[in-house]
């Protein structure tokens, strides 16, 4: 994403940027929340600027791995169980808002 930076101090995000991030994250932000979200973001992002100075001193081996298993079918949820928490379902399918 390329935020506009219009009307903001360099390095600061604007209310328009906040609105755009909300869109990307699929979280609606109401008009009256924009100012406070934006100022909080700027405080936090200013703190994150500490990371600018970081350089890797010595590469260290990663200890956590994803260990993959054989692709074998094992017991899992039944269709009924999988649908048991869905607020709407039809003919064994999840019911979702329209895409188009």
């Amino acid at each position, binding site marked *: 994403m390329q935020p506009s930076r219009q009307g903001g101090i360099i390095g600061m995000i604007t209310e328009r940027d906040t609105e755009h991030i*909300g869109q990307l*994250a699929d979280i609606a932000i109401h008009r009256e929340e924009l100012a406070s979200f934006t100022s909080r973001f700027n405080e936090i992002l200013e703190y994150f600027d500490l990371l600018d100075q970081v350089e890797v001193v010595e590469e260290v081996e990663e200890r*956590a791995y994803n260990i993959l298993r054989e692709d074998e079918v094992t017991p899992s949820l039944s269709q009924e*169980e999988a649908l048991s928490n869905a607020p709407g379902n039809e003919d064994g399918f*999840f019911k*979702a808002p329209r895409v188009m």
Partner: protein
Amino acid sequence: MPGHTVSFHPDDRYSAFLRTVAEAPCGEGKLGGIRVAVKDNISTAGIETTCASRILQGYIPPFDATVVKRLKREGAAIVGKTNMDEFGMGTTTENSAFGPTQNPVDPSRVPGGSSGGSAAAVAAGIVPLALGTDTGGSIRCPAAFCGIVGLKPTYGRVSRYGLIAYANSLEQIGPMAANVTDASLLFEVIAGHDPRDSTSLDCPYRHIPDPEIRGVKIGVPEEFFGEGVDPRVASVVWDAISLLERKGAEVITCRMPSMAYALAAYYVTCTSEASSNLARFDGVRYGPPADTKRPWHEAFQERRREGFGEEVRRRIMLGTFALSSGYYGKYYAKAQAARNNVRADFERLFREVDVLAGPTMPTVAFRFGEKSDPLSMYLSDILTVPANLAGVPAISVPCGKVERLPVGLQVMGRWMEDERVVDVAYAFEQGGSA
């Protein structure tokens, strides 16, 4: 005693629980008939599990998390689900959508977070054991604030299957209890390999705490007593370290330069992971419904605005921003470099010392509302996040008080040496007697 139940009608005056089970099934085993409380981000078949969020209200998991299965296998009675900061995002339990929990030591103060309900349930004597989860201190902080023991295990030692994910690369489920022996027993029951968690290690824990610490080298990084640490807390913790020295441990002061940016690295990493993990909450598969008459994005956005609290929305958006093109290099990539440097610091120090010790939290428990500014709340996690970034074990054990409020001693160990941090905590708990 298959078919038996335990009655549970607690006086929950501190609001530790989101819901309780009046007649909880139990069996025989290492925890036969013992009441255990479970944090509400851990799936319990047939018992509503919400992560203290409105977006999961009414969700009843059709399966048990592996840790819950393991508890049941050893006869434990799962008596209730405990309050927490929504999705684990907080340091006070004030971010619960269903209201805060009080600290049993002083109800005008927070219990810490995010596993505040589990800590309060143990501290109030309602249950002897509880499960918490720790992404950046969420077991150790409330343990310290409520005056109990909490262990964040080595990453991979406890299965995360059935834990509703917030930041996968950082979080672990761990035990909370009134004393080290009980915490150790609960850890024994939940640890072990699980093929359903791809990061699970085959390294069970079978250990009886041993208070003998003669010759153990304890490193004390100067940064753990740096700016922001209450001098009264520092003094109580130094007294605790001196006691370990009198018991035969060798205390060595050292430096951990990566502490300068560990917190920033942690918050960039956890918010980035959260932005991806929490994308699944869309009102289609669980939770209150999205409006299916409206277009997808519109319905989705409105559902999420209503369903998530302010802090959760803030973290999802911060993570989305940190991962977005044009900013990925400045935030996420730098945070991973910083994380590497934290690991490098631990590895270097652990060539010279066996454990690291310092305060768990920079202060005693906050008053309600004291940390209303998000950044100041984040900063209070500075001493707990390094262990999560490196995946090493860390325990908090009560070590004294400042004006009647508990202080926690934190002991961190080498990767996979959970046994040793348990032993050092146990040695302290046994006091001058050994």
